[in-house]
Each structure stands twice: as structure tokens, then as C-alpha cells.
């Protein structure tokens, strides 16, 4: 199923022509209206006339998260204040947040792009979407809301929490789709089991969209099995309208990134050098349709690669692989590089492991992984624990090539991270 068939099935050369036209327009707009970009372009010795085709994009300077933060609250605004209708912010733990502005047309476009994503996963106006994300400054809940409304679904804007009430809403309004964080999805599955509610029989949920936190394929499989649903990977970031930048189709094999909206590049996260198609590196995005706040070559810090092969669904927009890590999260222990997600992936596949974990780096490059035990798998014997410890040690070593020390701890004893999980504690001093 398609929402905007003519754009989704555009021929490659037509898409290219559209991208070129939109890129030139965007570059001209920021040159004219955003002093930050005029200065940056000047320093790089380029102007709008340098951009003849999309290949010229690499001459333009990058925009970093730090640039956006430093331009807070409105340094990157490209439209008069009277023309913007919405601001969202992206949480920063220290200093200023990132402020992202939308014009009326930006919101319209975002709703249509989100509607494309939902339709692509088989959702229709017959569906009932329970939106269990936090409504507010965070883009996640609202953009999903607009997309679902555009498709014509019945929306239950429940927000997060109050699990008992959530389940009542699911029953009373015959909810078929959930939108929530992966950790809440796992909690919900647990809760239903404890209450003796069988989601396959007692509820009608068929699709779950999870977001706002990093999660692994193993976590997706767990949610799918526990709730009897299809989980679709989605990718987005507040700087680019929130969710819906890229989404999986029914093939569930890579995420179509909407190339009429964003120009994508993959670069070396250290040097910024563009990498050949198919190589893994940092995703860099340039907005092609944004009026209020266009961003040029924005460094997402997310690690992925482009899957150049055509998708059986026929959409011409190229797919990216699920995000395998954050460039900022990469760890180097004893000279070996790895991402925390690789450890999570191992943990989630082993029986006896509970819900939470922590990665600890200490002096002398000692890697310790603290793992919560699953209460139901404890048989009262120290041998079972020892065996679990050895299994984890071996499996993690095979995955990341560094031998970890495994500490088993009680269920619920590790701090639960809110939103984007921060599970690495680095006590090394250099």
C-alpha cells in the first residue's frame, strides 16, 4: 500500500532531478537568510552558485549538533518568526537544548511523510493507534499523532504510564497499533503475563512501533513473540522532524529513507570523508523541503550503511541498515573498537538474563558487564549462576573480541535509564 504513490515509486532519474532542484533552493535560502550558514560557506569558500548538482554537496561544510546547540534559541531560523508555528526541543543533558522550528507547511509535509511510513507497514484508516509516547517538547508523540490522523486512524492519545489504564483503553477502544518505547513494550508484555491477559486472545494489537531508545534485533524479536505482533524498525531524530525519516516496509529488511525529503551521505565518523555506497559509517542528512529551519549536511552521529539493492516493494527510496550504534558511543578497550549495542545483543539472546545491564570501564582497560538476573530463572544453586557467567563471558568475547568480567546482580538493582539509555560508565582517566 502507498500513501503518495507518485513520489514513492518515482523513477531514479526523476528523483535525482527533484533532489537537485530542492537542494539548490535550500542552499540559496540558507545563504540568504541564515547568517550562520553565510559565514560557514564563506569560510569554506563556497556559495550557492557552486551547487550545480547533488554531487557538489560535499563541498559544503557540515552542521554539527554542537552548532545547533550554540545557535539556540533561534540562530538557525530561515523564516520570519511570524511564519513559524511550532518549536520542539531535543533534550540536552548539559547546556542548551536544540531548538527545531516548523512552518505550517513543514508540519503538513511531516504529517504526509509519517503517513507514508504507516501505510507502508500495512496500517489503514481502520486502525486504532494508542500513542503511548510523551506528548510535549519531544517530537516523537506529536509527529506520530499527525501521521496517524492524516491516514485517518482513530487515535487514543494516552501518553505513557498507568499500565492498568492503558490496558483498559486497549480493550475498550479495540486498539490495533501501539507506539511506545521498547523498554515500555517489554514491561507491558511482562505486566500482561502477570495479569493473566493473553494479548493474542484478549487484545487486538497487530502492529507495534517502537522508538526513542536504541534497541536490538533481539529486543524486537522478544516484543514480537511476547505480544504476537509485527514490530517495524523506524528511524528519526528531532533535528529532522522526529520519527519517520526512514521506516521499514513489509519486507522488514532495511529502512527506506525518504530521499525526496533528505539527501543522505555516509561519512567516516572520524575524518568526515565520504565513504563509498555500501560501507558502514556516520549518516549525514541534508533537509530538502524544510522552510523554517533547513539543515545542511547534518552529522547525525548514527552509524549505518546504505543498502543499494532495489527493494521488492518497488519503492525507489534507498534503504539504510538498522542503526548499529552512535559514533559517540563507540568504545575502545585494549585497542579494540565496539558498540555497547553489540553487548546488549548478546545479553538479550541468553536465557537467565534479566531486563537491565551496565557496562563499566575501569583503569587498565578492564571491561566489566553488570547483568541483572532474571528472577524466574534462579534455581537457588550457585552452579547455575556460574554457568550463566561463563556463557556470557564466552559469547561477549566472541562478539567484541574483548574478554569481559561478568558481574551478576539482583533483578531491579541497576538504575533504569529514562528515554535514551545511558548504560556505559567510563571510569578510565587518560
Amino acid at each position, binding site marked *: 500500500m502507498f500513501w503518495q504513490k507518485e513520489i514513492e515509486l518515482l523513477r531514479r532519474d526523476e528523483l535525482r532531478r527533484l533532489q537537485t532542484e530542492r537542494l539548490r533552493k535550500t542552499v540559496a535560502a540558507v545563504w540568504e537568510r541564515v547568517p550562520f550558514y553565510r559565514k560557514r560557506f564563506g569560510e569554506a569558500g563556497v556559495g550557492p552558485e557552486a551547487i550545480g548538482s547533488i554531487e557538489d554537496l560535499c563541498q559544503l561544510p557540515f552542521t554539527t549538533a554542537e552548532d545547533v546547540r550554540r545557535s539556540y534559541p533561534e540562530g538557525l531560523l530561515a523564516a520570519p518568526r511570524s511564519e513559524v508555528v511550532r518549536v520542539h526541543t531535543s533534550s540536552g543533558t548539559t547546556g542548551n537544548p536544540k531548538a527545531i522550528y516548523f512552518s505550517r507547511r513543514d508540519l503538513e509535509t511531516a504529517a504526509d511523510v509519517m503517513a507514508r511510513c504507516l501505510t507502508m507497514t500495512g496500517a489503514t484508516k481502520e486502525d486504532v493507534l494508542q500513542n503511548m509516547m510523551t506528548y510535549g517538547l519531544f517530537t516523537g508523540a506529536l509527529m506520530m499523532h499527525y501521521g496517524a490522523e492524516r491516514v485517518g486512524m482513530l487515535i487514543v492519545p494516552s501518553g505513557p504510564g498507568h499500565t492498568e489504564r492503558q490496558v483498559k483503553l486497549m480493550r475498550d477502544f479495540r486498539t490495533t497499533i501501539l507506539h511506545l518505547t521498547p523498554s515500555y513494550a517489554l514491561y507491558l508484555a511482562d505486566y500482561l503475563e502477570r495479569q493473566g491477559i493473553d494479548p493474542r486472545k484478549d487484545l487486538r494489537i497487530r502492529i507495534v512501533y517502537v522508538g526513542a531508545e536504541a534497541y536490538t534485533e533481539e529486543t524486537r524479536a522478544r516484543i514480537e513473540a511476547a505480544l504476537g505482533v509485527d514490530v517495524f524498525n523506524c528511524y528519526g531524530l528531532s533535528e529532522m522532524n522526529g520519527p519517520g525519516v526512514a521506516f521499514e516496509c513489509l519486507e522488514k529488511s532495511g529502512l527506506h529513507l525518504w530521499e525526496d525529503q533528505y539527501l543522505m551521505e555516509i561519512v567516516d565518523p572520524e575524518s568526515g570523508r565520504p565513504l563509498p555506497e555500501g560501507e558502514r559509517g556516520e549518516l549525514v542528512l541534508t533537509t530538502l523541503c524544510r522552510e523554517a529551519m533547513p539543515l545542511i549536511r547534518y552529522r547525525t552521529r548514527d552509524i549505518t550503511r546504505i543498502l543499494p539493492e532495489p527493494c521488492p516493494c518497488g519503492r525507489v527510496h534507498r534503504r539504510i541498515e538498522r542503526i548499529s550504534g552512535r559514533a559517540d558511543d563507540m568504545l575502545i578497550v585494549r585497542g579494540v573498537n565496539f558498540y555497547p549495542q553489540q553487548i546488549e545483543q548478546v545479553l538479550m539472546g541468553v536465557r537467565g538474563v534479566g531486563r537491565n545491564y551496565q557496562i563499566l570501564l575501569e583503569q587498565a582497560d578492564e571491561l566489566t558487564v553488570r547483568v541483572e*538476573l532474571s528472577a524466574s530463572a*534462579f534455581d*537457588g*544453586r*550457585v552452579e547455575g*549462576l556460574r554457568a550463566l*557467567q561463563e556463557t556470557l563471558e564466552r559469547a561477549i568475547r566472541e562478539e567484541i573480541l574483548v574478554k569481559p568480567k561478568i*558481574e*551478576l546482580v*539482583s533483578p531491579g538493582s541497576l538504575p533504569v535509564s529514562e528515554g535514551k539509555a545511558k548504560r556505559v560508565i567510563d571510569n578510565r582517566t587518560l
Partner: protein
Amino acid sequence: MNPTKLVAVFAENHTGRLARCAGILAESGVNIHWLGIAGVNGFGVIRFLVDKTDLAYRVLKSRGFTCSLPEILAVEMADEPGSLHFLTSKLAEAGVNLKNCSGFVFNGRAIILIETDQLEAARRVVREQDLHELSEEELLSL
């Protein structure tokens, strides 16, 4: 005969956890008859023999402890040299794998507590050798 069960508690920090468990059990009026700690590499399992097993399990669980109730075999032996060797050789001959094992002498009675995955096989050996298996009531009334 009621099977004898221990209350086993997961503990990453022995001293602190033991103190908290003991405190909670005391508050609930549970009497500890025996305890053992099996520890390796920074974590371990504290095992209690108590007079009110189900109550102890419930209160510890409700206070966030990870618990289970492993079944054990309590056997009385002659309090003399060689009797432990005799019993364990017979168990080994029958292919019984001991998981945890502990023993004590109380009022001249030598008791061994056996934990194994092959409880029935172990029980058969005890019967064949004409040794006495203590019931939970008997064990608690020592």
C-alpha cells in the same frame, strides 16, 4: 513426608545481604535453624533452613530478593569415622551428582544435607543402605 526445602537467596554482596535477610526474617518471626553461603567470583547464594519456609520465601520475595525453594535430602549417619565416606561412595556408584552438600553434628547426631538434581536416585540409595532420611518436622525439631 513433606519434602525438606531450603530458602535460597541470590546475593551479590554476602555480608550486607545476609544482614538484611536476617533482619527481615526476624521481623516476620521466622527462626533460622541453619544457614550456608555458597559464593564464587563476587556473587553467591545464601541458603537458609527455617521453621516457616513458605512465609520466609514470601516476605523475602516481596522485599525484592531473588529467591527459590530448592528441595534437599536430610540424612542421619552414624557419628563415626568413615560414615561420610561410605554414603558418598554409594551415591557416586549410583551416579548421583551432588550440587551442594553440608553437614553438622548436633546433640551427637550427624546430619548431612544433600542437594542434587537426582533427588529420587539419592533417596533410593539412602533407603537401600538403611539410613534414616529426616522429615522436615524432624529436622526442625533437632
